[in-house]
């Protein structure tokens, strides 16, 4: 089985290095960073932290160097999906392409370039320490499911099995929208509040007015999911309260806050912007998500 990870940042690297442990899988990685690619080819891709793993794989910045692959795993930031899949689509002419990205709309973007798409949501997280070396912060589950009838569940199960054997526990399900929307609602209701105020997750949740705002954002997201008959696999409210505990993620600075501090484009269009877009499509008003989306777009415009 040949798998290409498209976008070998922190999350992509977790998949690539773990899958490279398997004898029956040949791993490729496509990434825009020449330094990262060179380091991987010279010394392998090293993970440390939650797990110590070094994977041997073929990395390239040149999409035309990719051989035909059975699977793609797209792990770029959401705003880079279109360019990344446009460049690599030829490698998946007979294969299946999974997204493990944040947000809404990535599957639709992939489906404009490739025939067979797998929807996915992943919880593990990390950060790049230096080229070729990634800090594995949190372990967690991944859920994959067919995007439409062109992708049979058995094909998804084969990829999930490989990921699980490699050390990334992954479930294949018929409808992966539940976990996807649970994560999107969680992120859209918490990340931008941290980004706009500068507060950590725990400090947002202990202010009653901000916690009420988070709850209002969650309610809108749930209403948009319900209008599409999506059954969430867990209540985002419970996850938010769980994460706010001192020993869990009280001091966690949302990735969007880190983006804002570094003046990097955020994923707001795919989080609150995505919920608002689906809301309009299904006739569910989302005034709070609209407001938060507009404010973060304003922050980006101020740079």
């Amino acid at each position: 089985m040949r798998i290409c990870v498209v976008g070998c940042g922190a999350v992509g690297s977790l998949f690539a290095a773990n899958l490279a442990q398997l004898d029956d899988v040949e791993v490729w990685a496509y990434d825009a960073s020449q330094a990262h690619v060179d380091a991987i080819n010279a010394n392998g891709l090293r993970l440390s932290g939650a797990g110590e793993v070094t994977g041997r794989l073929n990395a390239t910045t040149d999409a035309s160097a990719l051989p035909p692959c059975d699977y793609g795993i797209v792990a770029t930031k959401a705003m880079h999906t279109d360019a990344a899949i446009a460049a690599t689509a030829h490698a998946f002419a007979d294969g299946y392409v999974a997204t493990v990205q944040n947000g809404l709309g990535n599957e639709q973007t992939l489906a404009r370039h490739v025939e067979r798409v797998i929807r996915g949501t992943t919880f593990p997280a990390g950060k790049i320490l230096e080229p070729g070396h990634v800090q594995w912060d949190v372990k967690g589950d991944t859920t994959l499911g067919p995007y439409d009838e062109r992708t049979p569940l058995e094909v998804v199960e084969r990829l999930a099995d490989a990921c699980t054997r490699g050390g990334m526990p992954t479930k294949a399900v018929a409808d992966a929208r539940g976990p996807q929307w649970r994560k999107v609602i969680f992120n859209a209701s918490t990340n931008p509040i941290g980004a706009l105020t500068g507060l950590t997750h725990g400090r947002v949740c202990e202010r009653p007015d901000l916690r009420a705002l988070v709850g209002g954002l969650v309610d809108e997201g749930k209403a948009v999911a319900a209008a599409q008959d999506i059954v969430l696999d867990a209540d985002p409210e419970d996850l938010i309260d769980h994460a706010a505990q001192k020993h869990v993620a009280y001091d966690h600075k949302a990735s969007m806050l880190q983006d804002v501090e570094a003046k990097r484009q955020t994923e707001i269009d795919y989080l609150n912007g995505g919920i608002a877009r689906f809301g309009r499509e299904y006739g569910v008003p989302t005034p709070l998500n609209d407001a938060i989306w507009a404010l973060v777009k304003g922050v980006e415009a101020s740079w």
Partner: protein
Amino acid sequence: MMSVCVAGAGTIGSLLAGHLGRVTDVSVLVRREEHARALNRDGLRVSGRADFTARVTASTEPADLPVPDLVIVACKGSDLEGVAARLEGEFDGATVMTIQNGLGAEEVVAARGAWPLLSSVTFMSGTRHSDTHVEYILDTETWIGPNRGTTANDARLVADLLDTSGLKAQAFDDLRPAQWSKLVFNATVNGVAALTGLPHDPHFAGEPLGDLVHALVDEGKAAAAASGVELWEDPWEMNVLATQRGSAHSPSMLEDVRAQRPTEVELINGSLVRAAHAAGVPVPLQETIYALVRGKEAGYSA
């Protein structure tokens, strides 16, 4: 000619004291000794739309200053409690005028003494270059109306004094329509600027931020209507007009957030939200801005 004490010499206080110092006796109540010494020594220079230096008498103690006919409390809203407390028991016989953004400044001052009160709001702006130098940038009007124990005629006398000094002023029989127009405008524009980091530029009238600004203004208008106030100007039109001026103004709340200073969020956004609740009008978006700005203050130096 009416003598004046300006309490608080930030940008607005300095613009008032400097201009008025050309035409009448002006004293200035400040917080720092060094500031008082500099003003007594050098006077107060106004540049920009005018260029002159006015003599003023400054002190950190109200008791050191002559009792004026008019006290203008010109400090920022976030300093109002402290300044009002220092006026308690002083300046008996003077009329006191507030000029803070938002609602409720009159009540804060009223609680500290029995002076007759005037209300005002100002749209002028400037940049304070030093303790003794302020640049006059926007020569927009100050609006004045009667409050406790005063009449429209008292407001008119003060407006005339400001006009004579080179500032622009207008007297109203009832300031509330104008005060509310500015309240809705400030709660919206200052809040959005503080949260996004954008000065008041064309983004505020475009997509997608203009949609939010419009929705925030609509909530404010509904709160005003339910409070029995017919707005003097449409805050949305004020917003559009201001974004077309060419040079984008940084609202004070944005300046405060940049410098990690306490903002006027309570007098502005807090007043609007509380008034809306009292009138039974839902304002979820204004509540969002209020909560986020308060959260941003809580995150200073984090």
